């Protein structure tokens, strides 16, 4: 999911960077309204937690293990606006320190995983969960929030890859950036996330949310804002 340097043309990464900056400005305003004085340490904590979640391997049913992108989980735990900022901070630190995701692609990666993904996850979670606090429904909502948000973000990434040969090619018609066109990039990204990574993301999100629901339901942002017992 992390787009490296060299795959996206400036025609793609510059506009995405602009959209990302706009989204972050809105998110900062919203979080400042929600936690007026404490927003700085709160966001710092959320960002560090996001970073750690992304490196946390969890055993998944079937014997293997995997780690989540974590955007859906962070959106459920901290809310979509705080998730936007905290996941972005985590992604920027990852790109700078670990080379995981490109520097020029920071705007695109943050847009896909820190803006689009938490918003979609939050929408799906609220759609399935409604105002219910029934544990099984919450867990199902968390699974689909994790699964679908990752799959949709992967397809979006596939589109960003796939349009490169169309918008940035040399005089000889060869691709200057990502060489895979839409008919290769979209299926490649969609299939692996539909069948494998999406399920891992969904399972991990559901497992952790289930644990939080059992132990400290009040810590979940979604239930701090609204909700009634079923």
């Amino acid at each position, binding site marked *: 999911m992390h787009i490296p340097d060299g795959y996206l043309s400036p025609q793609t990464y510059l506009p995405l960077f602009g959209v990302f900056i706009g989204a972050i400005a809105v998110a900062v305003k919203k979080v400042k309204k929600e936690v007026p004085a404490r927003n700085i340490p709160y966001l*710092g904590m959320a960002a560090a937690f996001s*970073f750690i979640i992304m490196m946390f391997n969890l*055993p998944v049913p079937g014997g293997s293990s995997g780690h989540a992108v974590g955007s859906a989980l962070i959106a459920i735990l901290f809310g979509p606006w705080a998730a936007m900022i905290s996941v972005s901070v985590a992604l*920027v630190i990852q790109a700078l320190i670990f*080379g995981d995701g490109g520097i020029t692609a920071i705007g695109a990666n943050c847009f896909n995983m820190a803006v689009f993904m938490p918003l979609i996850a939050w929408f799906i979670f609220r759609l399935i969960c409604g105002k219910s606090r029934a544990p099984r429904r919450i867990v199902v909502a968390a699974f689909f929030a994790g699964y679908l948000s990752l799959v949709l973000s992967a397809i979006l990434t596939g589109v960003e890859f796939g349009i490169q040969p169309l918008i940035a090619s040399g005089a000889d018609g060869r691709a200057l950036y990502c060489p895979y066109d839409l008919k290769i990039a979209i299926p490649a990204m969609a299939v692996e996330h539909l069948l494998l990574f999406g399920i891992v993301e969904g399972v991990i999100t559901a497992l952790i949310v289930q644990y939080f629901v059992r132990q400290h339901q009040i810590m979940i942002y979604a239930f701090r804002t609204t909700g009634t017992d079923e």
Partner: protein
Amino acid sequence: MESNIPAFLLTEEPRDRFSGDAGKTRFSFIERTIAGTANSLRILYLQAESAGNSSFIARLNPVTKVLAFVYLILVISFVHSLKSQVSTSGFLAVAFLFSGLNMARVYRQILLISFLFGFLLAAPAALNVVTPGDILVSIISLGEPHDFWIYHVPARIGITLEGCNIVARIFMRVFNSVSLSFLLVYSTSFPRLLKAFRIFFIPDTLLMVFWLAYKYIFILCRTVEETYLALKSRMIRNIRNETLRGIAAGRILYLYEKSQINYEQTYAAMISRGYAGKIILAGENKMTVKDLLILLCTALLGAAILIL
């Protein structure tokens, strides 16, 4: 007398939580991840903090470094010729010589990342299925071409010269970008680097969030390491996956609670130091003639790379 030993160390684990024989535990994959990340963070922290005034690159004003970094990253992204990318690699290697860093260690890391993201991801583009052209090395002969849905598979599949050029270009771009970012982060302490980013009008509030997150990450990494050491020391045999999932989820909840405590303490500390809702970071040293000369040289170098 009340015991100071934690309760979980005094209670016996239920037998159904274990599976298999005593001996090797299934904790290794978690341990490897945690150890790997914690180690990378530790190296970065030590390198950046000890960078101080130890080398020519480290002594430069962070604002100069950040401006040069952004300019060169854009140049690398805009350049398409292999000759230019190789020249950039040469220039970066010279810069590393002046950085006082352990070049073997840093380049090992750069090569690994470049291989994963620059070569492995791009490698299929070398085939004529993705990049049509004259086949250099034939891999499979299917007898006749095949068409299904929107895809066309030629009769002979092989590596093309055009495809190799594309793979080499992507590899070099990734290699140079990663080299440049490592040169920057390994030669500048993180707080100074963040302050330098103010030149792009990033609000101090957001920079402060970065700085706090960076500090918290170190604290949380140490917590994770200690937690796993404590858990590992109690594992005498394999435990069931279900139990392991519960333990890992429990650690995440524990980390969340720990993060909340850190956040509350930080906020209390900020209040006690007179924080009233507005953050103003102290400014960096002013740019000197040396810094301006470095920027001019970088600008000329970037232009030369673009013209090559």
